């Protein structure tokens, strides 16, 4: 399959198309505050690490790229984590270990390894921005559904009339994946992104 800028940009919307990062989407979408916190962390770490990687990728031999990229991503995630612990410690408590595991997330690594490595800093910044914003939106949508229906709260505030009707399973891991699957299905149906991508790739293959 030929890799084009279009396919990278469109495919760079994890948890809709590639189901990359589904684990931390599930883990971070039980509460809207956690979802927005994780979204911001992903966005910033992706922007910064993609930018730095695009600067050095030509000077790095292939065998040294993996450790170097991991160092950079881990470094930025650690810095972001320290900042969040100081100013958003409630969100960090909610995210727990999932914030730290962002360092080895396939979402950020894909951006760094494929996009920044291939297309330079201007394009990688655009991809990181699109990926981060879409991921945040997906997590926020999942979080609104899970927090309201699963926990009978919004932004941590109780919604008294929903308390007797809450579906606690939605707050757990299985509920998280179920909600994510439903959101993915709805978005794919509305936007037809998968269909559009498949068509593009078929055309590209035919041209080859």
């Amino acid at each position, binding site marked *: 399959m030929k890799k084009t800028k279009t396919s990278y940009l469109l495919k760079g919307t994890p948890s809709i198309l590639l189901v990359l990062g589904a684990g931390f989407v599930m883990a971070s979408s039980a509460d809207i505050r956690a979802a927005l916190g994780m979204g911001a962390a992903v966005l910033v770490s992706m922007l910064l690490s993609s930018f730095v990687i695009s600067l050095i990728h030509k000077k790095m031999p292939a065998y040294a790229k993996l450790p*170097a990229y991991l*160092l*950079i991503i*881990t*470094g930025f995630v650690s810095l972001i984590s320290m900042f969040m*612990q*100081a100013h958003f*410690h409630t969100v960090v408590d909610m995210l727990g270990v999932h914030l730290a595991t962002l360092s080895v997330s396939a979402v950020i690594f894909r951006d760094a390894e494929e996009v920044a490595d291939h297309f330079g800093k201007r394009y990688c910044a655009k991809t990181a921005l699109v990926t981060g914003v879409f991921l945040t939106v997906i997590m926020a949508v999942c979080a609104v559904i899970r927090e309201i229906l699963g926990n009978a709260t919004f932004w941590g505030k109780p919604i008294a009339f929903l308390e007797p009707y809450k579906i606690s399973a939605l707050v757990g891991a299985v509920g998280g994946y179920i909600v994510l699957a439903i959101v993915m299905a709805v978005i794919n149906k509305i936007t037809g992104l998968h269909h559009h991508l498949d068509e593009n790739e078929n055309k590209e293959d035919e041209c080859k």
Partner: protein
Amino acid sequence: MKKILVTTAILLAIVLFFGAAMYALNLYTGPIIEKNNAGAAAGELLEVLPEGGAFEELNIAELGLPEAILKAHKETAGKGFVFEVKSAGYGPDMIVRVGVDAEGKIAGSKCIQTNDTFKKEPELDNKYNGQTLETFAPVLIGGATMTSNGYGDAINFALQAFVLVSGGELSDDVVLEGLLPTVAPAIVKPVALENVTGNITKAFKAANGAGYAYIISAGESSYLAVVYATGVCKVYDVEGNDVTEANAAVADEALAANETVDFSETVAAMLVAKFADATEITAIEIDITSSALYAASFKSGENTYYAIYSRPLSYEDSAMDIVTVIDENGAIVKQIIKQMAFGHGVEYMPGIKDFIDPSAPAFGAYLDKFTGLTEGTLSDDVLVTGATVSTSAVKTATKDAFTVFNSIKGGNN
């Protein structure tokens, strides 16, 4: 070669850059994170000491606090203390956080760890507010006797710890009262009596009918006198030493305070019901150091047996009369239980209802489990799911019966 050097330099630069960045960021975020963490910890402490502000943790090793105290925090403005206390409820690992205000009153309490099956602890949270060491009275909730007792013990330990961290000393009365479970385990769940006379400053009656305990002052000293229902009296000093012989007057005053109970008739009736030809039922004097209260030997046919009697408590303070009959070889011939006490366990485990009727097959089958057991073969097999508290009490009574049997036989089983 050049490529390797460049790669190494880049990797080194990355490491140095992030190392420096983290160091610099930590200078800014470190104090904020520390403050956040302290605030979160203080929040937990404020739940049980709402009037508090900032707290500092005390070094409990230096203060000589009871072993049950796991953590102690002092409110920096002198508004009180917060203790984390380990206790034993239904399971061994109950931890209760207790706030004590500057006047020594309980300001709040919260169970923060437990493994009670029925999760009854929240019902006890904050129920002790306002109590002091002097006015301490256990709070009991139905269907959770062991949990209630464990929670009450934790509160009592916290009140004692407050006295110690405040620079005071525990009064002899408090120390002697604290000795009771250790020196007289047969005096189960002592209940304070209101009317005391003479040199008696405090009096307690065992809820299982095993006897009484008295704090008696004699000159400048105080003693703990334990009077078993059988009429045996033992006197202990504040160190827990048996000083009965040297304090005959104290023992006499304790013995005169209440009537004794003769268990021989109860035991004889239970024996005759199972051993129709039982003869020569003779009481044996035993040193009461466990739940076993009374022992007798008797003959049935050509054989001599030993009957050891216990009266443990189970759910909702119901007492069980248990006689363990052991042969000369140290094996159980018959386990006789007059009545089992299950309390709310009956509601949760319908099958347990069979046990209530001593003539029911399930009850008979349960008792048969004991036949032939020796001290070495007694195991958790005698426990019944859904009636753990009652059957644990039976197991303890059986274990204590073997101990008494060994002492009767001079340690030679």
